[in-house]
């Protein structure tokens, strides 16, 4: 059973993916049942596992490919953190996507890849070895591409091309790094840090840089972030998933893995590579925000905001102090909840009111109060206002920065806060204070669209409000840091 559970979790999205591809276009009921069923099953399995792991159980399943090439699925606390997020949000996004697409064309393909994408994310989270991490990382790239290109019009295809143009060199760098490292140390399992003494510091720095380039593309670190805003051509559920759960999170998760499970925090510190990474993350945070300020499309602005926010996680990991680490890890969840809320809402605005531009948001607050409240909650969380989730992460990051002896982090956080406020508050201002245009339409008669947004927004509020409780993401993050990376 202990070997089967990770595999089952993986299968719970892989099987719907495989079957969905072969469903007829108009078998909506079957397809929806399949996808929702998979999501529910997975959620159930994960909840079961959560309790089991809390009780001390451990899960591991491996499939040797070639010598040195081992697919290892393993559950640790970090994996559990990420996988819980992805399972929950997958479930919600599935509901949302079903409502969003209705009976549009080529849904079997869409949902097939959608599930595949989640399977890849799941695998990524469960990966216990570097190489299986890479394999799922690539699977993620590949399964997201059709999602980005889903509309198949010119902007979508060009966005998809840009995506690949960034992602594939990134994975080449990642593979390069992995193989360079493993050629000296043998296969790297996350359970036991590899013996790095076989490589000289210069080589190790090079490997680290390659790793960061590899995962940094997905994490949208400046200057590797260009694909993310371009990908806004994708349908809203895709953007939502991409930004909140799958792709960028995979990158950020990768950074965490690289720093803590591959190199080890102490080595990172000894090599002196943590600080440059932290600086890079900071540059990303600021640059993403500045660019967000210049966008006049809602989704574009959100995208740049993602660029900026995801780097909080990287920053937390790079600072390599326990508190910063907690902040980074918890932001993995928090950012996910907040950003997916905002993307859900952006999609609702688009779908129900035809609103894409910021200027068109005027007065939507009154017409679409639920959506707008959720959107506002997400935005305020991003700015970092308590008691929303974003504040908690920011607070820990700040403390962590001070703890790590990097007080400049505070400056970055402040700059980010101000910039976040600068690009989100005008949206709220338009939503709530400005009168609606005369020809504006918009309603919320689509509960399946609104409810997921409300749920995630509530969650974003809840995780912040109940942050100190042991079952909150913060509690988990603290546990992870204490259990796995503690002294």
């Amino acid at each position, binding site marked *: 059973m202990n070997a089967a559970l990770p595999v089952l979790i993986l299968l719970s999205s892989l099987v719907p993916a495989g079957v969905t*591809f072969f469903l007829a276009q108009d078998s909506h009921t079957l397809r929806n049942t399949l996808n929702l069923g998979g999501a529910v099953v997975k959620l159930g399995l994960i909840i079961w596992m959560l309790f089991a792991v809390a009780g001390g159980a451990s899960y591991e399943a491996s*499939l*040797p*490919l*070639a*010598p*040195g*090439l081992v*697919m290892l699925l393993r559950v640790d606390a970090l994996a559990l953190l990420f996988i819980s997020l992805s399972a929950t949000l997958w479930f919600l996004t599935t509901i949302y996507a079903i409502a969003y697409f209705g009976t549009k064309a*080529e849904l079997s*393909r869409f949902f097939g890849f959608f599930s595949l994408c989640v399977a890849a994310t799941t695998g990524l989270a469960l990966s216990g070895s570097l*190489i299986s991490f*890479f*394999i799922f990382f*690539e*699977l993620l*790239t*590949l399964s997201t591409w*059709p999602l980005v*290109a889903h*509309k*198949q*019009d010119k902007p979508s*295809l060009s966005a*998809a*091309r840009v995506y*690949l143009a960034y992602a*594939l*060199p990134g*994975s*080449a*760098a990642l*593979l*390069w790094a992995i*193989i*360079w490292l*493993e*050629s*000296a140390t*043998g296969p790297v399992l996350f359970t036991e840090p590899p013996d790095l003494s076989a490589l000289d510091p210069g080589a190790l720095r090079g490997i680290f840089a390659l790793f960061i380039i590899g995962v940094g593309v997905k994490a949208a670190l400046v200057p590797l972030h260009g694909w993310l805003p371009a990908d806004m051509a994708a349908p809203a559920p895709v953007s939502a998933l991409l930004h909140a759960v799958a792709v960028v999170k995979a990158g950020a998760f990768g950074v965490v893995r690289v720093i803590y499970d591959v190199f080890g925090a102490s080595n990172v510190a000894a090599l002196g590579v943590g600080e440059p990474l932290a600086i890079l993350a900071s540059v990303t945070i600021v640059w993403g925000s500045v660019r967000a300020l210049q966008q006049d499309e809602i989704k574009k602005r959100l995208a740049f905001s993602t660029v900026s926010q995801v780097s909080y996680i990287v920053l937390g990991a790079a600072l390599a102090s326990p508190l910063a680490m907690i902040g980074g890890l918890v932001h993995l969840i928090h950012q996910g909840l907040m950003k997916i809320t905002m993307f859900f809402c952006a999609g609702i605005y688009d779908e129900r009111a035809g609103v894409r531009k910021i200027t068109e948001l005027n007065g939507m607050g009154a017409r679409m109060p639920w959506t707008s409240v959720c959107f506002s909650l997400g935005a305020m969380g991003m700015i970092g206002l308590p008691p929303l989730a974003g504040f908690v992460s920011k607070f820990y990051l700040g403390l962590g920065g001070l703890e790590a002896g990097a007080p400049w982090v505070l400056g970055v956080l402040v700059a980010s806060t101000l910039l976040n406020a600068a690009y989100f508050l005008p949206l709220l201002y338009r939503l709530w204070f400005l009168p609606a245009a005369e020809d504006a339409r918009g309603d919320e008669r689509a509960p399946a669209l609104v409810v997921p947004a409300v749920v995630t927004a509530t969650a974003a509020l809840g995780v912040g409000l109940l942050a100190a409780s042991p079952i909150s993401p913060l509690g988990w993050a603290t546990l992870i840091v204490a259990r796995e990376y503690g002294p």
Partner: protein
Amino acid sequence: MTALVIVLALPLAGALAVIALPVRAAVPVALSATALTALSALVLAASVWQGGPVTLMVGGWQPPLGIALQADGLAAALIVMSALVVGAVAMAAWFEMAAARAGPRAAFGFWPLMLLLWGALNAVYVSRDLFNLYVGLELLSLAAVALVAISGTAQALVAALRYMIFALAGSLLYLAGVVLVYAGHGTLDIGLLSARSPAPGDALALGLMTAGLLAKTALFPFHVWLPPAHASAPAPASALLSALVPKASFLILIRLWFEAMPELASTAALLMLAGLGAIAVIWGGVLALVQSRLKLIVAYSTVAQLGYMFLVFPLAGGDGSAQPWAAGAWTGAMFQALSHGLAKAAMFLVAGICIAAVGSDRLGDLRGLARALPMTGFAFALAAITLMGLPPSGGFTAKYLLMTSAFAAGQWPWALVLAGGGLLAAAYLYRPLAALFTRDARLPVHPVARAWQGVPLALAALAVLLGLLSAAPFDLLQIGRPEPAVEGL
């Protein structure tokens, strides 16, 4: 052993039967011969897996008098791969080479030529005799040239002639080497040669043979015949030519450099081979990038993909053969041969379906085809994943093993080639993919049978599966591998 005999004889017997029997019997006979041979190929692989290399002394005569045939792990793997490819090609050809579509001449000629080609391949895979290899190669080349010419256009004829010239020149160079070897050692058996007392002419012999085989393997700069030839053959024929034919001459190279004359492998020569391979990867990739026809893209991609296999020489050959990483490098190159075979065949079959659907393989005409033929589009995408070397495909396993060895051996520039080649592959395969998956269709689409569409999909899935379940093929390849070094990596 019976399985080995059947694998060798049945394709030939099938070809003879197809020639002798009336036309209407051709397809059933060919298909059943294909099925039976494929089955025995699996049986052969299983027996190699269980009992080690299967050896056959033809006529009961031991070398140096007779000819020894041996199916080691590598040969068995290649035989199985070829059986899968030929099986798929036969399925596709059932539709594509039907007399109504391809004309009575091509419909008659394709089946025996395919079976002869297959027989020649199997003969080459297992042969341990240099001259027998020559005869096998000639059979292979003639059948291949005939398959190129089968479409009958002026372009195809030029391509076939150019191919013929390169093939003949290659054969003669190889023959020259064989002559020198026999003159020097009085034997042609690979096993006996490895135990020979060295002679001064050996280097010349090896050089001549290698050069000849390079021309046949279409390594840069001798690749110029390949793209026009593979692009002008009918798609099922191209699939065979691209996926299988170069592997035969490459295998002979492996036999020569790793089994017959491993001690001759000087570092400079090994580096030169790999260097040419590296150039081929880049050259083929760039040229594939600028082609506007699907079949040409796929053909140039073959040029590039074959280049990877040559990286094995400095990594596992010569002094490196005893190193711990040699096993990885050697197996990686063979994985590349296997996965490329499956994926490339799938791609050419996809091209065939495209031509059947819209009557052209220009990228501009393929726009939006995936809407009408989703399985085909998906098959191409899957095959592309393998060629790009993305996990979890066979191509990835190959690249991973080669790259790991490159780093372990301290020869990281090869890893750069591997990585860069993967990116180039992504770039040049992206264009057809994007064309297939756009929304706006240009030309009306003729319906294509679902079963036909399923064929390349199955092949491409196999290529991916090769990576997903690579442990078994890996172990199979180790059976009878020269100098099984410590498996450290």
